[in-house]
């Protein structure tokens, strides 16, 4: 076992409404690759930013070489020997390699930048990485993998003892990954502790020495990598506790409310795609959509909601064909609504009150001769707050002052006011506490008994198993399995989710 070089003890970080990290312990060993893994929203990036000094913890302590340290800024962390290479490389493409490496720390002699010194140190650091890159080359002209090496060099300029790498392989080809791994092994040999964050589980097995798994802001496992396999990691990431929500038990109708044939979306900014997908959702049926990050689940829901006019294939809602160019508002009129994954970025309007958020999608129905009457929608808002048990003192309260779970209920309430026939829910249980989660899921069950079709995305197997009448598993944009309720277990889900991945 290596020497402990860095420790984070009992770290807590909370934002209004959510707890990102809950008493998290993390240890990094010198000369080792320390893996940090967890699903989106598990708190990985928050922990990483705390270690790198970009975010301050609410509680807890950081120890470097056994000494308590506090990093007010990433610069301070770098000075003390903790470097970071971000996923979106923080390089200025218009500047040279040497200028980038010294950005913010330009060596000055007699009031001017000492280029000679700058170039010498740059060459020295690049030599250490065993890469010959011209210090005077403009970064934008380099390939992605070379840029990555420059970013690593930048982080190493101050003899980093700890180097954090956030998804370093996300933009690399297989050959480039090998180069990177060779570099990582060199750094290990030099005694650097590497904190490595990635979603690519096969990679972790290959390169990792220790693994720490985060789930829902807590540590779910910390172990030596030896002898661990992908299913073990997945189990730790996704959890295997049962979710206590009684199933609605009603028979779904025979007629499909949603019918999708050969839906394809070539590629999106996120790199995910939808590849020739066909399925039905019946009225009163809850269909789960399981898969790992980047499997194309969110993109599939976005296609259905009309956010990708370039998508191809047929989509029918209650027998009516929805053209690819049909806008969101027209789809809402026809009775479908998307509840997005990222509540803050796409769910709530932060500048509005709870009531204004709830009524937002329903305004035209309150119009009288083109005008909104006084107190329009007040009754709908009040009954929504009551029915969904949203905890708020009044509808005039700012939505940002509510907890995450209550914000989520408000978004569900907004969708219900349009009297939907089909709800598309992307990770409805994400980032909210267990009690609110159970409430949301109970609401979903009730909606199904009322004849609403629900298609929901989840990365949590327990949610899928507890909620779904039927589960579609997606991988690499394709549906790799369709599993009926009660006829599968979490192992089947994992196998299907990883299927196409292995093939690629």
């Amino acid at each position, binding site marked *: 076992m290596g020497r402990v070089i860095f420790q984070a003890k009992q770290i807590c*970080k909370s934002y*209004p409404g959510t707890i990102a990290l809950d008493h998290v312990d993390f240890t990094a060993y010198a000369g080792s690759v320390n893996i940090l893994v967890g699903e989106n929203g598990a708190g990985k990036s928050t922990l990483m930013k705390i270690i790198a000094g970009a975010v301050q913890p609410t509680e807890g302590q950081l120890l470097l070489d056994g000494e308590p340290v506090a990093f007010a800024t990433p610069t301070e962390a770098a000075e003390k020997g903790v470097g970071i290479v971000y996923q979106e490389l923080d390089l200025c493409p218009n500047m040279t390699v040497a200028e980038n490496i010294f950005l913010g720390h330009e060596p000055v002699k007699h009031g001017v930048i000492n280029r000679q010194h700058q170039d010498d140190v740059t060459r020295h650091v690049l030599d250490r990485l065993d890469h010959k890159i011209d210090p005077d080359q403009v970064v934008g002209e380099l390939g992605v993998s070379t840029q990555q090496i420059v970013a690593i060099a930048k982080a190493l300029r101050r003899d980093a003892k700890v180097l954090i790498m956030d998804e370093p392989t996300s933009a690399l080809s297989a050959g480039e990954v090998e180069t990177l791994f060779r570099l990582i092994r060199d750094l290990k040999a030099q005694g650097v502790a590497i904190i490595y964050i990635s979603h690519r589980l096969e990679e972790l097995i290959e390169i990792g020495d220790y693994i720490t798994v985060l789930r829902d802001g807590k540590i779910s496992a910390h172990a030596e990598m030896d002898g661990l396999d992908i299913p073990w990691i997945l189990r730790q990431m996704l959890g295997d506790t049962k979710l206590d929500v009684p199933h609605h038990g009603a028979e779904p109708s025979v007629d499909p409310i949603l019918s999708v044939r050969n839906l394809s979306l070539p590629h999106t900014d996120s790199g995910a795609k939808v590849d020739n997908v066909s399925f039905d959702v019946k009225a009163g049926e809850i269909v789960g959509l399981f898969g790992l990050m980047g499997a194309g689940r969110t993109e599939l829901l976005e296609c259905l909601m009309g956010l990708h006019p370039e998508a191809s294939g047929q989509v029918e809602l209650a027998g009516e064909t929805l053209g690819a160019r049909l806008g969101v508002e027209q789809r809402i009129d026809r009775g479908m609504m998307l509840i*997005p994954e990222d509540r803050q970025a796409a*769910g709530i309007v932060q*500048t509005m009150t709870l009531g204004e958020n709830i009524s*937002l999608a329903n*305004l035209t129905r309150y*119009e009288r001769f083109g005008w909104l009457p006084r107190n329009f929608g007040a009754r709908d808002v009040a009954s929504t707050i009551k029915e969904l048990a949203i905890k708020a003192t*009044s509808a005039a309260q*700012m939505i940002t002052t509510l907890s995450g779970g209550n914000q989520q209920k408000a978004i569900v309430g907004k969708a219900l006011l349009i009297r939907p026939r089909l709800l598309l829910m992307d990770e409805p249980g994400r980032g909210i506490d267990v009690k609110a989660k159970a409430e949301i899921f109970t609401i979903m069950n009730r909606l199904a008994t009322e004849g609403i079709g629900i298609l929901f995305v989840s990365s949590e197997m327990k949610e899928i198993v507890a909620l779904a009448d039927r589960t579609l598993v997606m991988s690499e944009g394709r549906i790799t399995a369709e599993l009926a309720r009660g006829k599968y277990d979490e192992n089947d889900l994992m196998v299907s989710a990883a299927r196409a991945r292995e093939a690629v």
Partner: protein
Amino acid sequence: MKDMAKQDLKKSEHPESETRGTGPALGALLLKFRAFVALIVIMVLFTFLSSTFLTWSNLITVLVQSSINGLLAIGMTLVIVSGGIDLSVGAIAGLCGMVVGALIDVGIPIHALGVVVYPHAWAVVLIGIAAGALAGAVNGWIITRLNVAPFIATLGTLYIGRGLALLSNNGSTFPFLDGTKAHGNMGFPWLGNGLLLDIPVPIWLLAIATLAASAVATRTTFGRHIYAVGGNERAAALSGVKVRSVRARVYVISGALSALAGIVIAAQLDSAGAAAGTGYELNAIAAAVLGGTSLMGGKGTITGSVIGALVIAVLVDGLILLGVSDFWQMIITGFVIVVAVAIDQVQFNAVKFPWRGGAAVKR
């Protein structure tokens, strides 16, 4: 920090802070109505300092003075609330003043028939406003279709508009807009100098525009959509708001109101000058921000901005009465703008980052 969220919940049990505040109730209230508070304070101040300040004739003067900036601030508020900015309002005012001047002085020559048509004064006004709406539509088109940032798009149209205004009469003014009996186009200057029930027409125009815009902002789907787009564009889009259309339409309204402002300027001066309205965009932004409009979008009220315009007008008027020089007036106005934006930042932090901004409010 979870505790903090709870505290916020508790705070909002006070009815005062229910609407917007996360800071202390009184502080939030003062912030929210800061323009009104500022207006009262400086009016009381000037009443003590100058015997002529609180007189009917002076107050009417102040209102007339504020009417141009008020009209521009109304459009500016809608644009800023939607998450944009309109730097072209002054140029559109100048350009539309020239359009109106040309229509009255030169008319519309129809070469094929060899005649010149002189539209009625009311038609002239309507054409002028339509020209402003068209200019606003161009802004909206550039911003939503060509995806040019509003600041840059309207900076460009500011130059284009001013250039067109200068070009329209080779840099000269169109003087004497009274029209002639023979042409049947008399009465235009009434818009600037006329009285209706003893109150100058520009004040009526400002009052009507304020009420109408306020009603649109608070009592129509479109108005609510403006706030939603400025607050969170993606959430608005997923709620069925036609984001592009909303963003484009606010510029059309702003353009039309700019034109109205330019027409009032021309009517007041009884002459249309190509340089009219130069720099007014900044006054309008100042009024909007002073009135509580957040430059980050999503927040602001029409009445607040009009009060903001009144604050600026009262300030200038009072300083003139006190014999303060033009130069000092500029310095003080600048000071007010900076303070207003500083207050906006404090308020922005308090709302968007309650976990750190809450402290900022207390400080």
